[in-house]
């Protein structure tokens, strides 16, 4: 899922300065699951940002709403009704959601309350960790289901660098060495031979190097048959 975290309240308060009637808009998608931008968080944020301690003058009036997904133009257009007089939307969605909402309500200002951080998974209750960088050419087949692009600090492709010690990365802290994990898993799988193969220089265009990427649904006829 897409993971994001709430910006500092002082930064959010500064970013809504000058607006009088704001809709705090939660998203029912990924950020609800990672507990940073769903209905409950939108309610909490509304209460906080309405408080006079964040504002030099009269605090803005905030109302709250949450829709199923802010990242779908149809849903936003058909189901989101703005309260009369709304002069800004404070979106708790990921960057994709913020941009769709901004397009639909153009030119109304849409302000992000979150910083979108990564594509991740919940490793344990309440802890989400980065797993994927969306590089567009998945190589998990040969790395034991552990991604060196996202999880190696240098995105190396040919095994651990000299800084790998005790299963940890040279960048320090608790950072695990992705290649140590890959090695250990391939060893358990009896597939260390996969590490012998040279990996070709990558085509970073599919990782976004050639500009914004697009995905179009294909194979509709295959799946549903010709009508």
């Amino acid at each position, binding site marked *: 899922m897409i993971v994001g975290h709430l910006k500092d309240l002082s930064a959010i308060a500064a970013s809504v300065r000058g607006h009088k009637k704001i809709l705090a808009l939660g998203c029912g998608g990924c950020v609800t699951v990672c507990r940073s931008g769903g209905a409950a968080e939108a309610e909490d944020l509304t209460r906080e940002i309405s408080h006079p301690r964040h504002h030099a003058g009269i605090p803005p009036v905030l109302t709250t709403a949450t829709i199923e997904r802010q990242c779908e133009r149809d849903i936003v257009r058909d189901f989101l009704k703005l309260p009369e007089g709304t002069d800004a939307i404070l979106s708790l969605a990921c960057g994709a959601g913020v941009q769709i909402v901004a397009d639909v309500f153009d030119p109304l200002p849409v302000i992000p309350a979150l910083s979108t951080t990564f594509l991740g998974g919940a490793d344990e209750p309440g802890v989400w960790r980065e797993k994927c960088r969306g590089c567009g050419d998945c190589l998990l087949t040969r790395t034991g289901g552990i991604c060196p692009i996202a999880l190696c600090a*240098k995105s190396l492709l040919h095994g651990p660098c000299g800084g790998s*010690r005790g299963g940890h990365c040279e960048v320090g802290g608790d950072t695990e060495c992705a290649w140590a994990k890959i090695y250990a898993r391939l060893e358990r799988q009896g597939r260390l031979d996969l590490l012998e193969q040279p990996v070709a220089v990558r085509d970073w265009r599919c990782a976004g190097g050639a500009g914004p990427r697009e995905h179009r649904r294909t194979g509709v006829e295959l799946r549903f048959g010709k009508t």
Partner: protein
Amino acid sequence: MKSGGNLEAVLVAGHFAVTGELGPPRGSNVDAVRKKAAPLKGMVDAVNITDNQTAVVRMSSWATSLICIQEGLEPNYQMVCRDRNRLAMQADILGASALGIRNMLALSGDHQSFGDHPKCKGVFDIDSIQLINMVKTMRDESKFLSGEAIDGPPRLFIGAAANPFGEPFEFRVHRLAKKVAAGADFIQTQCIYNMEKFGRFIDMANDMGLTQKVHILAGITPLKSLPMAKYMATSVPGMDVPEALIKRIEGVDKKKRADEGIKIACEQIQELREMKGVAGIHLMAIEWEHKVPEIVERAGLLPRPKVAPPPPQPPAGEA
């Protein structure tokens, strides 16, 4: 000959090679380079010129290499994958060769979080093994990474690094094998303090036939002091300093610790000269360049061999 350089000639002739190391200054101070270069002249067969080592900005490796050539030293131009993409790399490789640089060391590079610009974007477009292969293809097939033809291929003796003390230990020799397969002509290892473990690494390299294909230079960094020994043991990624060595430095009078460090280095060098599969040493006297003459003298590595450079070969693709 692949490069026409001195290091290649020394190694091909079967001499026990010695390479040194010179860290460029944090500025455009040419005299600082000359001062460090002077004591190395005639003491080493080539000198590594580091490339923004520990991710700290310094005078560029190729520029410092050229100053070293002016000073009569053969440079080993280092290049890391952290700071440039494949276009910049290939451009610099061509320029380095054009201006007379004959050796190049291909490295991943320390992570940018260690350096003076921790907020920067690490490039890592290609990794060190891919870089080795890119230089080899440029040199031997006269082709860019794109497959397009090069007008005048670079002539470089290609080096790579190996850390026998990184983990997993069993994989290290296989990573070395990948570098050899990619096209490395010589290898310089991480600083060695754990001789027993290094011996096991070299045994494996011998068993796999790697030492027949590549010249391995064993990394030696004399310990200048007790704080340095402790720093190497605890704070440098991928380093293995046995406790006994620290105790030995600690056991001598504070004023004699630097000398004890040199003594240890000389003992290591003697042991390495007897070790099958070791083609030379890479002496990294960090910020201690002026001590290099004394170290190589005491280690019995002087005089350095004078090998007549072979006549230049026509570039690939020409008759």
